[in-house]
């Protein structure tokens, strides 16, 4: 069993890392073509990411879409999470289900829905359309993080504020909202990272006129591999790993993933 534990863990780590390592090796290749073993070592393809107008535009577009759509997602999700938990609303399960439904269904459904919606309105291929579609699709993430925060919040805190004379609005603004901020940030970060990585919705909504980073990668791949694509992949991998490593260091990753509190106490 002990042996199996190590064999299985090693296998899983290799399975997850293998494709990422190969991409990293290719990205430092000096040659224009992919070679193995790699020839020379260079950061040339990383510089290309910023020097090439096409790549730079795609990066800027993607960052813009991710930053704004994640913000909109939080603005949509937070009031929902708050009202559904703080008030006794009979339709609450149905409204919550509506909030998680977009994310629950295969993305191609939201993508096709957005495509027919925008083309029936006559506003095809605009940047704002991608932002709105991403915000709706990823609003599920802040909805879940903020709802969890509402559940674990000590109800005595807003009550105390109101006993001391604060009206509901003041107690929300000065007590509840500040307590929800960490979960709003987590939800924002999750929506941001996933929006940055999303392809099919952006592609179907953009109708070839807006190019986000994943769209640019797929378009370039149609003409064959370039080390620049590998460099982009490495940057993505680093962003993801750094985000979660920071989360593990400064936040409580285990608790966020739903670990048993007993595990958190064990072997500090």
């Amino acid at each position, binding site marked *: 069993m*002990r042996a199996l534990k190590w064999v*299985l*863990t090693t296998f899983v*780590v290799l*399975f*997850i890392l293998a*494709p990422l390592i*190969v*991409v990293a*090796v290719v990205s430092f290749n000096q040659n224009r073509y*992919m*070679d*193995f073993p790699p020839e020379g070592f260079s950061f040339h393809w990383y510089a290309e990411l910023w020097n090439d107008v096409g790549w730079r535009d795609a990066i800027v577009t993607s960052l813009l879409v991710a930053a704004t759509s994640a913000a909109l997602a939080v603005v*949509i999700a937070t*009031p929902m999470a708050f*009202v559904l938990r*703080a008030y*006794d*609303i009979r339709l609450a399960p149905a409204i919550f289900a*509506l*909030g998680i439904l977009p994310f629950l*269904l*295969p*993305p*191609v*459904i939201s993508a*096709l*829905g*957005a*495509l*027919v*919606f925008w083309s029936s309105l006559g506003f095809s291929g605009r940047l704002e359309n991608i932002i*709105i579609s991403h915000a*709706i699709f990823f*609003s599920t993430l802040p909805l879940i993080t903020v709802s969890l925060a*509402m559940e674990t919040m000590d*109800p005595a805190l807003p*009550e105390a504020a109101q006993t001391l004379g604060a009206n509901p609005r003041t107690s929300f603004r000065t007590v509840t909202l500040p307590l929800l901020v960490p979960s709003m940030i987590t939800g924002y970060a999750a929506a941001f990272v*996933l929006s940055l*990585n999303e392809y*099919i919705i952006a592609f179907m909504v953009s109708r070839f006129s807006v190019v986000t980073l*994943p769209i640019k990668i*797929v378009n370039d*791949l149609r003409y064959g*591999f370039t080390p620049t694509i*590998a460099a982009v*992949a490495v940057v*993505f*991998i680093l962003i*993801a*790993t750094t*985000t*979660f490593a920071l*989360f*593990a260091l400064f936040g409580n*990753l285990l608790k966020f*993933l739903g*670990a048993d509190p007993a*595990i958190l106490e064990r072997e*500090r």
Partner: protein
Amino acid sequence: MSEVRRPTRGSWAVLAFPLAMLTLFFLAPFAIMVATSFYHRIEGGFYEPAFEFASWQRLLQGVFLERTLFSIGICLLAGAVCIVIAFPFTYFLTRMRRRSHVALLVLIMSALVLSEVIVGFAWSVLLGRAAGISNVLVWLGVMSEPAAYQPSFLAVLLGLSYIAFPYCILALYPQLSRLDPELTEAAQTMGASPWRTFWTVVVPIGRPIILAGFLLAFVFTLGSYLIPAFLGRPEHWTLSVFISDQATFNANVPFAAAMALFLTVLSLGVVGIVTWFEGRTRR
């Protein structure tokens, strides 16, 4: 919150914005998609309002049925691969020392947020002829010349398993971390080997989450678009690829809408089974 209050006019006003956004940008597009599935397709990529069942009738034809059966088959297989590896792995993970526990979770979460674009690209390099695994084998002297392992069925299966695997772990993790260590200890005090304990204690207790994790991985892979498109030939395409292809390159939006609605029903059905099962075991 303990004291749940009755909704006031203010609370409905607060709800108005999110509800309006979801209605306008999720429910309305969905309704338009339903309507579009009955529209009449005009050759050349356009369609006009109508009420006909042509697109729905095409769902009964060979190509679509073939794609559906293939998608369900390969996604069930990918779900099975995921759960068979993820269940024992997550069980071991929750019993590791904190440092390796957290490090592995960071690795898994990083893999989880990776774009399908990146995963598909990385696997196509790894399985390709130019700089892939076969080149390592040639370099080591095991093989005489490099070979390409993609596009192929196995490549699609590997890619699908790769993207669903972290989600599968995430679904199993909360429950397995709560598994009372006294249960396994009791079994071992009574003389059961760790192996026997795993099979006779951990697996039976975990049966509901094994099913939930498996179906979750299944629904998730069903939604994958880029993996089958990158790593497979057209005969390895799943419904998601087929729908996108009909909507964009073949420009048959009504047919794509009918297929998307079928996919919605299929996914919701599976999710319904999971929630029903979870509700039953919780009682």
